[in-house]
């Protein structure tokens, strides 16, 4: 039966409202009497607040109120909670006031809010707020912040080290002693700005008579936001409704519970009016979380024959100035545990120092920890290949974990679910014509042209995840999902889910699942998500978990619907329940397919209950929860081909071949779309994107004019291939696909550029590989030779 779910690239059901401008994003919402909130933000990276005077703002025409951090504190609004404290790492969790009270710690730290009749007047008011700052020494770089003598962000956090986390497996010391070759590198996995196209926004309506609040907010996980708000606003969870309306992309940046969520609730409570805040893009660059930002000292040990023996790393992970919702879990659990990649590496050790700096808080950004792991491993593999003068493809093949279908433990302690890494590599090699590419490369080199071929073979951890593991690794929530399937009298279906898609298309994917499994039309199903008053509890959309975990819950509810329908059908057909079978929307008596009731007939009878089995509850509705027994581990092999202009340093991307395996594929069109988008984001990191702070903590890339986002004209048409290795950890056999492209494409493209530059003597260039950096590296190599 289940096979009908898979492989149909039907058009997305959410699109009609999106292509006509009828979708309602948070900033599109207008409530009667609504006031607009603007935030006054610190221009200093680190300063003592000597005076915050909002009186002049209150006099600005149109301004209705202005508040400081002290006002908010006095009203009983507490600090923003950190929802992930990794155990055995001595994690410090300093207070994170929504509006700074005595000290600002990054450029963009809120110091006051101004409320006005429209957004222009609110901005005028914000400009009128007077703040006296006493600047303090600042530090922006994680490694520098952890060195002796660095300026301290918190008196009680020595060396700015928030935590020290370790992962260890095998005997690393012995492996390095046995090694024939050891390669070392310092990798700067640079800071990125997520840049969801929709900036964040929040709209609160507090009802003083009921003590209730509704918050419409750009969120990937409204239930988590509700839970956290109940901890810091003083409003109990059952009196908070959080709605994520249409959400314009997130990429992790809309996971956290942000200070502005609390600010609009506070202001609405103070004013007795609805209050909306919408960030500008400049604000987004300062006040929405950033991603990555690791300084990694890494080394790999190998035998002369190419056998990888061990990997050892020390990482300084920049956490920014405050702990955002999930920030400590990203550079630890989601990073350090993935250092085996797709390879059989017996010994692994990593120390991770989470470091506070005077920068915007860092949290999950697409891939979240896995890109930082995969880049490290793949870079080291390329370095070992170069050292041994082996083809990097051969070195990879030699060390791949052989195919497995029933769990494979790796040195970091994880157990991968299923994998056939060689299968993906073979397919990518064939699609790219790897041998032909190497031949072409040799020919072009003889003409003084520099073609480069790069490769990434990856596995990643997603479909987060078993709740027991979540608890064991310090995540402050569960990671199960839930779904309700409800049949109406006419046979139409409502589906309510706890996940909260925001571009990934699960309104379509889930409708496809229900339609195929229960024999209704796709158009007969409406999927609801993103409203805590309407949908069952769930932990949200991130970590490529929506279909893997949410789909599991949906399958559970569908199973219950089928079971109940069989009882109703047996009654109506005057047969025994055991004799009822189901196929394609019909419940029939075994051996007599003509004696059947459709799901629609059953739905009608269950809803009216006129002729109904004695003792059976009326209605046709089922609710199910699903907690997976393990994570899922999608994998693949990507090959990039670039040409570098040695005169200018410009990199031209010529071809990009991606073979991914996300288990079973429900809607191939949606899956391919996820891969395309991921690839481009990952290439953005390799070639253009970087959030740059100067030494005083000023954000130099403060707007889209300074931060280079990928544009349409920089890419060839990607060549996609799939292999299919179903997982056993969920009923659909699906793995996640939302982040694979981002994880794989950065190392593939970086490797391609380094491969192109090898004959020029260039050994290393830090990302992003802008023409200037590549050109300088070429010039320096010339001088050395």
């Amino acid at each position, binding site marked *: 039966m289940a096979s009908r779910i898979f492989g149909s690239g039907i058009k997305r059901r959410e699109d009609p409202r999106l292509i006509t401008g009828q979708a309602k994003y948070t900033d599109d919402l207008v409530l009667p009497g609504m006031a607009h909130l603007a935030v006054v933000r610190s221009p200093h990276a680190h300063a003592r607040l000597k005076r915050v005077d909002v009186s002049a703002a209150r006099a600005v025409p149109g301004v209705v109120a202005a508040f400081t951090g002290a006002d908010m504190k006095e009203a009983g609004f507490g600090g923003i909670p950190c929802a992930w404290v990794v155990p055995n790492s001595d994690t410090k969790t300093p207070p994170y006031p929504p509006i700074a009270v005595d000290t600002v710690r990054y450029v963009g730290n809120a110091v006051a809010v101004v409320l006005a009749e429209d957004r222009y007047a609110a901005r005028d008011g914000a400009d009128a707020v007077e703040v006296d700052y006493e600047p303090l020494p600042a530090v922006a770089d994680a490694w520098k912040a952890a060195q002796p003598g660095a300026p301290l962000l918190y008196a009680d956090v020595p060396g700015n080290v928030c935590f020290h986390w370790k992962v260890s497996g095998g005997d690393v010391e012995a492996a390095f002693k046995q090694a024939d070759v050891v390669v070392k590198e310092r990798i700067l996995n640079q800071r990125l700005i997520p840049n969801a196209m929709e900036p964040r926004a929040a709209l609160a309506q507090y009802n003083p008579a009921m003590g209730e609040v509704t918050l419409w907010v750009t969120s990937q996980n409204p239930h988590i936001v509700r839970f956290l708000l109940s901890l810091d606003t003083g409003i109990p969870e059952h009196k908070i409704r959080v709605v994520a309306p249409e959400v314009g992309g997130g990429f992790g940046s809309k996971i956290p519970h942000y200070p502005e969520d609390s600010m609009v609730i506070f202001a609405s409570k103070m004013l007795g009016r609805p209050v909306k805040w919408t960030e500008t893009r400049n604000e987004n660059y300062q006040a929405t979380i950033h991603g990555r930002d690791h300084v990694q000292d890494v080394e790999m040990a190998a035998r002369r024959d190419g056998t990888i023996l061990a990997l050892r790393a020390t990482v300084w992970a920049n956490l920014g100035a405050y702990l955002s919702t999930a920030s400590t879990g990203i550079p630890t659990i989601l990073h350090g545990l993935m250092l085996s990649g797709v390879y059989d590496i017996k010994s692994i050790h990593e120390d991770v120092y989470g470091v506070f700096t005077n920068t915007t808080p860092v949290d999950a950004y697409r891939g979240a920890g896995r890109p930082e792991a995969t880049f490290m491993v793949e870079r080291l593999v390329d370095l070992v290949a170069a050292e041994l003068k082996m083809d990097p493809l051969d070195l990879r093949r030699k060390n791949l974990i052989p195919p497995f279908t029933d769990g494979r433990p790796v040195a970091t302690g994880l157990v991968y679910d299923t994998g056939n890494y060689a299968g993906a590599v073979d397919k990518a090699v064939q699609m790219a014509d790897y041998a032909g590419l190497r031949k072409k490369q040799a020919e072009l080199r003889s003409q003084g042209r520099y073609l480069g071929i790069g490769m990434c073979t990856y596995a990643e951890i997603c479909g987060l995840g078993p709740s027991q593991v979540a608890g064991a690794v310090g995540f402050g929530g569960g990671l199960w999902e839930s779904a309700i399937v409800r049949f109406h009298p006419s046979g139409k279906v409502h589906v309510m889910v706890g996940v909260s898609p925001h571009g990934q298309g699960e309104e379509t994917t889930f409708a496809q699942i229900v339609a195929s499994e229960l024999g209704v039309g796709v158009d007969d199903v409406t999927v609801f998500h993103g409203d805590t008053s309407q949908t069952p509890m769930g932990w949200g959309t991130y970590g490529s978990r929506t279909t893997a975990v949410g789909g599991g819950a949906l399958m559970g509810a569908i199973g219950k619907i089928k079971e109940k329908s069989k009882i109703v059908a047996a009654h109506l057909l005057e047969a025994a329940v055991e004799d009822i079978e189901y196929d394609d929307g019909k419940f029939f008596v075994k051996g007599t397919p003509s004696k059947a009731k459709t799901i629609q007939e059953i739905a009608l009878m269950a809803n009216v209950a006129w002729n109904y089995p004695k003792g059976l509850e009326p209605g046709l509705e089922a609710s199910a929860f699903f907690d997976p027994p393990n994570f899922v581990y999608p994998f693949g092999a990507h090959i990039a081909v670039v040409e570098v202009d040695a005169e200018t340093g410009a990199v031209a991307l010529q071809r990009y071949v991606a073979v991914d395996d996300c288990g079973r594929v429900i809607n191939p069109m949606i899956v391919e779309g996820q891969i395309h988008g991921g690839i481009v984001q990952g290439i953005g990191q390799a070639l253009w994107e970087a959030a740059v702070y100067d030494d005083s903590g000023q954000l130099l890339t403060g707007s*889209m004019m300074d931060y280079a986002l990928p544009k349409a004209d920089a890419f060839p048409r990607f060549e996609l291939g799939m292999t299919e290795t179903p997982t056993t950890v969920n009923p659909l056999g699906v793995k996640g696909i939302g982040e694979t492209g981002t994880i794989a494409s950065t190392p593939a493209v970086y490797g391609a550029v380094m491969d192109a530059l090898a004959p020029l003597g260039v050994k290393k260039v830090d990302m992003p590989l802008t023409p200037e950096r590549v050109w300088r590296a070429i010039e320096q190599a010339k001088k050395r030779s």
Partner: protein
Amino acid sequence: MKHALSMTVNGVPRSHEVEPRLLLVHYLRETLGLTGTNVGCDTSQCGSCTVLLDGQAVKSCTLLAVQAEGATVTTIEGLAPQGGLHPLQEAFWEKHGLQCGFCTPGMILTACDLLQRNPRPSEEEIRHGIEGNLCRCTGYQNIVASVKLAAERMAAARK
């Protein structure tokens, strides 16, 4: 000091008294309630706010509303008659040219302008033509395919 402003938006004559500093995009979104036009940046990089002004694609965050005095403006809501779809809208739907949908109205109107100037663009010309509009979700591949499909259908319809 407010200024009298008149323009035709999606075929309907509109008149308001507005502040001289009011951006066209905020006039469309907040005064007229046409929220299909989105704001994605402050510096005219992203193109989410693109509308047609006298038939030409413009980023409506770069213009003051008063600069559009007397103009004819088309937003995503007015691109096709009520209940219908423009070939570009159909093609974006069919080819999965959108994910979160935030950049989509601007992307479609930019493509509309492109196809007026160049009815049968090559893939390279499409990529060049839309490079002033940023999309963070799709990786552009399916947007390019959408524009190409729409161009083919619009060309066929003209024959």
